[in-house]
């Protein structure tokens, strides 16, 4: 919120300051182009909304996924920004310019029964989206958790499975089912949160998240490797059931005098059950740790690279594990 306000104030100050010495031009235009958001919602689109009648479901079916969901689905927010003019700043040898954004918010509040309580569409050039939102979310209300900090969203799924190795030793395809993978850290954090980028004195400068939940990523990597070895994923009557525990799956950073590194780590316990037998499950533990060294601080790509390397390492350990291979052979 503050950043956006400061940015706009600085722009205005810069125009006034440089305007005195060079040329600053502000050209107002009709609203056009889309600078942020998915698309505009016009007053005419809201004609079907009726207080105490329209349901949350109807709103979402008409306008799609909200840009923000607050207070346990009580408030839905749609946001978009359009260009409402241009600023140009010219000196003798240099010039700069850009669009003047106008932020729009369409906010809807629902009651306990999911019926529309109130709604409002606001648009302003001078007030940021966050400031407009603050008027609707009184102190104590739930705020967007990602605000004010950079977020790196990564999808570290391995791009191609590693050679099948011992997984294909028997040459007989196995019907496998992927069960639940319990993620130990998911109780305290969202299922997609994997760590922070930290600067000196442990100051958090960015969140690192995965585009899919961590158990989903691990299951996908195991499935891809099993399928690459010729085995088949099934939903019922499997030859083998695979479940597991994810003790660690995350990133962190280490800072020294010469480098600022991204560190990815993975610790997974894989359990293989043979349905219809009294045999104890085979329990295998796979661990991996990878580091990406940087000078100026890890980027999104560095975090992506270390976590992808960890998942590929896990796949390699699976393919070279004789114990796991023996279970697949049904010995």
């Amino acid at each position, binding site marked *: 919120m503050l950043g956006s306000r400061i940015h706009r104030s600085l722009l205005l100050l810069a125009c006034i300051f440089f305007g005195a010495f060079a040329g600053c031009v502000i*050209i107002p235009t009709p609203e056009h*182009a889309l600078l942020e958001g*998915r698309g505009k919602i016009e007053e005419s689109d809201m004609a079907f909304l009726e207080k105490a009648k329209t349901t949350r479901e109807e709103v979402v079916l008409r306008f799609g996924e909200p840009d923000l969901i607050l207070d346990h689905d009580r408030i839905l927010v749609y946001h978009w920004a359009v260009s409402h003019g241009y600023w140009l700043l010219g000196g003798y040898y240099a010039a700069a310019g850009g669009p003047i954004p106008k932020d729009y918010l369409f906010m809807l509040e629902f009651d306990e029964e999911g019926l529309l309580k109130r709604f409002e569409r606001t648009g302003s050039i001078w007030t940021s989206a966050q400031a407009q939102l603050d008027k609707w979310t009184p102190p104590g209300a739930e705020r967007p958790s990602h605000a004010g900090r950079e977020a790196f969203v990564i999808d570290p799924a391995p791009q191609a499975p590693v050679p099948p190795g011992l997984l294909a030793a028997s040459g007989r395809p196995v019907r496998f089912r992927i069960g639940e993978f319990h993620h130990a850290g998911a109780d305290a954090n969202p299922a997609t949160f994997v760590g922070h980028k930290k600067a000196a004195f442990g100051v958090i400068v960015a969140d690192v998240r995965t585009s899919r939940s961590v158990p989903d990523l691990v299951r996908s990597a195991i499935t891809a490797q099993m399928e690459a070895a010729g085995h088949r994923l099934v*939903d019922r009557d499997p030859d083998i059931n695979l479940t597991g525990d994810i003790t660690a799956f995350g990133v962190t950073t280490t800072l020294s005098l010469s480098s600022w590194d991204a560190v990815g780590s993975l610790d997974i316990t894989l359990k293989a059950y043979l349905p219809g037998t009294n045999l104890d499950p085979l329990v295998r533990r796979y661990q991996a740790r990878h580091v990406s060294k940087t000078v100026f601080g890890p980027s999104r790509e560095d975090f992506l690279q270390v976590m992808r390397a960890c998942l590929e390492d896990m796949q390699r350990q699976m393919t070279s594990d004789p114990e796991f291979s023996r279970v697949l052979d049904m010995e």
Partner: protein
Amino acid sequence: MVFSPRWSRSRIHLRPKEEIVAGKCRDKRFLGRSFYILSAAVLILLATGCATPKVQTADPQLLFKSDLLSFIQDGVTTREEAILRLGIPSAQIEGEKILMYQLRADQEGKWHLVAPFWNANTGLRAWREGTCSLVLVFGGDGVLLKHSLVTAQ
């Protein structure tokens, strides 16, 4: 500097050389600046012609043309099937009643699931151009009641 030709009594006053050179430079600068301002004005005029995309529901037939989404049928598709085929939703409301996915079509018109993005300053969703929202509403028995694909055009 004064120039007096023999055949004329009139005296022609010429500007000093430095003044003439400086004037030419001023003219060049003026022309250069005018060019930039004119170019900017033309660009702005062109940009003003760009329409703002509007949020609207897409033609339901669009789903059936796609391999990824053709399984979606009201009264038939179950929540389990949707999650098995499409994975974790990008957002959900009212528990597991309303599931939402983000999709983008490639140049051949084939739909792909995309990961949600956030604007780090505001915490609001950030949408890449062409991203659509698939909304699935399930009944108490876990069977699809209604669905819609919301696009921006």
